[in-house]
């Protein structure tokens, strides 16, 4: 068991409150298209990863996700994430021009472990998107985040995303999760 379980109820409530505050604020920055401010919340060594998922037989469910380092929907470092954001600002990013309207719902926040200055936090998400007049997508999944304490507050240094779709049913994943 992690040290987290040994903390008092009050200490756990405080930690969970801090983590939730970070996650809700971060989601709000993306929903509000304040992408540069969102980038500032990322540690320089961030790993942002969403593996591919497949339908498998029940007896082979260990094959459901592709392995780390293999094929993935996102396998981004800060450089790639910065490029994704820059792309939106410089024009001709047609999947986001006109911009999508997005709303992120973050729930079921649980702290997994604490390790010196890092917190591992699990949460569920729903990302709802509409585009133009009639396009509608939504993605549901779970996240495993690692938040690191720094002078200005938490930084996100790991985000692993597990989507509840195999074939991606939207025509792109131009939103960030």
């Amino acid at each position, binding site marked *: 068991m992690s040290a987290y379980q040994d903390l008092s109820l009050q200490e756990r409530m405080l930690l969970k409150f801090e983590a939730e505050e970070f996650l809700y604020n971060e989601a709000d920055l993306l929903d509000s298209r304040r992408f540069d401010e969102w980038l500032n919340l990322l540690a320089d060594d961030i790993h942002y990863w969403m593996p*591919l998922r497949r*339908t*498998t037989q029940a007896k*082979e469910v260990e094959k459901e996700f592709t392995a780390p380092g293999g094929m993935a929907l996102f*396998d981004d470092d800060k450089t790639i994430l910065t490029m994704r954001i*820059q*792309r939106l600002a410089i024009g001709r990013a*047609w999947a986001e021009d006109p911009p999508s309207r997005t709303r992120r719902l973050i729930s079921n926040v649980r702290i997994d472990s604490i390790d010196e200055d890092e917190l591992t936090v699990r949460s569920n998400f729903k990302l709802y998107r509409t585009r133009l007049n009639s396009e509608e997508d939504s993605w549901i999944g779970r996240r495993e985040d690692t938040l690191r304490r720094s002078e200005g507050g938490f930084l996100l240094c790991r985000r692993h995303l597990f989507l509840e779709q*195999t074939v991606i049913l939207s*025509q792109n994943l131009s939103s960030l999760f």
Partner: protein
Amino acid sequence: MSDALIATDKASVDVSGCFDMATGILDRRIFTDEEIYQEELKKIFGRAWNFVCHESQIPNPGDFMMNYIGEDEIIVVRDRQQSINVLLNSCPHRGNTVCRAELGNTKSFFCSYHGWNYDLDGRLIGMPGEDDFYRNNIDKKDWGLTPAAKVENYRGFYFATLDPEAPPLEEYLGWVGKVGIDFMLAEGDIEFLDGIHKNRLQCNWKLAVDNLYDWYHVKVSHGSAIKIGILDDAAMAPDNQMVILGEYGHGIGGPGISEEEQARYDARLASGEGEPQWYDRHAERRTSPETREMLGPVGTRSFGHPNIFPNLWIAQTNQVCLRIPRGPYETELWWFNFRRKGMSEDEQKFSAYMQNHMFGPAGVLEQDDGENWSHSTRGAKGTFSKTLPLNLSMGNKADQVSQDPSGQSCIETVINEHAQRWTYQSWQDWMAAENWPELMANHSQPPTGEV
């Protein structure tokens, strides 16, 4: 098997005149008409050699993966004798699917409805109540899973056709299709990686095929990717384009270099002197005599995108992509990924970086492609807009096919729409022919002289 799996009725849709090769004018109803689409499933996907897998994806007996021929689900499975079988995923008892996983390993395919059980080659092994309920009055050998009419492979790439009259795979591919596949083998043997990027677009499958030859859209569609530096503008080579057209609609289109540039490259390579050029990254992969022999003198100089008709795009990123029809307005893209055996760790990392970041639903290139193809499909739906012609005239009657003594031929020019015109012309041939003998007799031959 003697009878065609797909019986085409004689009173079929007439699409002659949908595309005019002389002017490059295209009737946009071919992207939205339900009748035309149903006919495509029979006459194109039902007859063609469809890519089903690479041998390395299912290396062991019992390994299987699901795929599609048109809209029909197929199981691709390696049996105990190491043969790769292609079976329609439909139990002959009530039609239920017998395989629901996308990939895996199994001893047999067991129908979840009543328990009919099939061996890895599709043979019906048994069912509950064979004695008691059927009173041994059923001949199991007549009721196996239906196999594809033919399964053949070219250098580890497996294809299947549902039409017993189809010519042998290598004859179907011709030199153009074979060179397209050889592009992937230019540096040696390859193995496919675990994981196929799959997503669904609201576009007609032909618009996604058309686009793979399209080097005109890059600067505009992918303007943002060029600006952030992930796509090299110079390597798009708008003034150094090479188009290769093959029988039955295969083609290769995109950057290429002239014989003179190839000679300059070879001289630079030998002397170690001179400035690097945009094409070095491609050319350096094709220096061995074996590779040049495999690709031929023209194929060696082409760095474009091959398409194996109808829907297998071979990309320059260690990937192939199937454009799988899902109705007139919907297409699934499946990005298969591979690596060369013996790649260094750095090379593998770079390859995976490209595979995960350029194409696929989150790819910085393909996000914008999907948007354009879907809206082009939408533009073919309006009651009035669908009656308006589309213009595919770029470079029409402006270029020459040059014939190499080796028998290979190509068009060397600037950005153009030759390969798209060839695709629609060939599509029309496929749709006009009632069967393979007619298609073999009447299909357009790759052009010579002025194009």
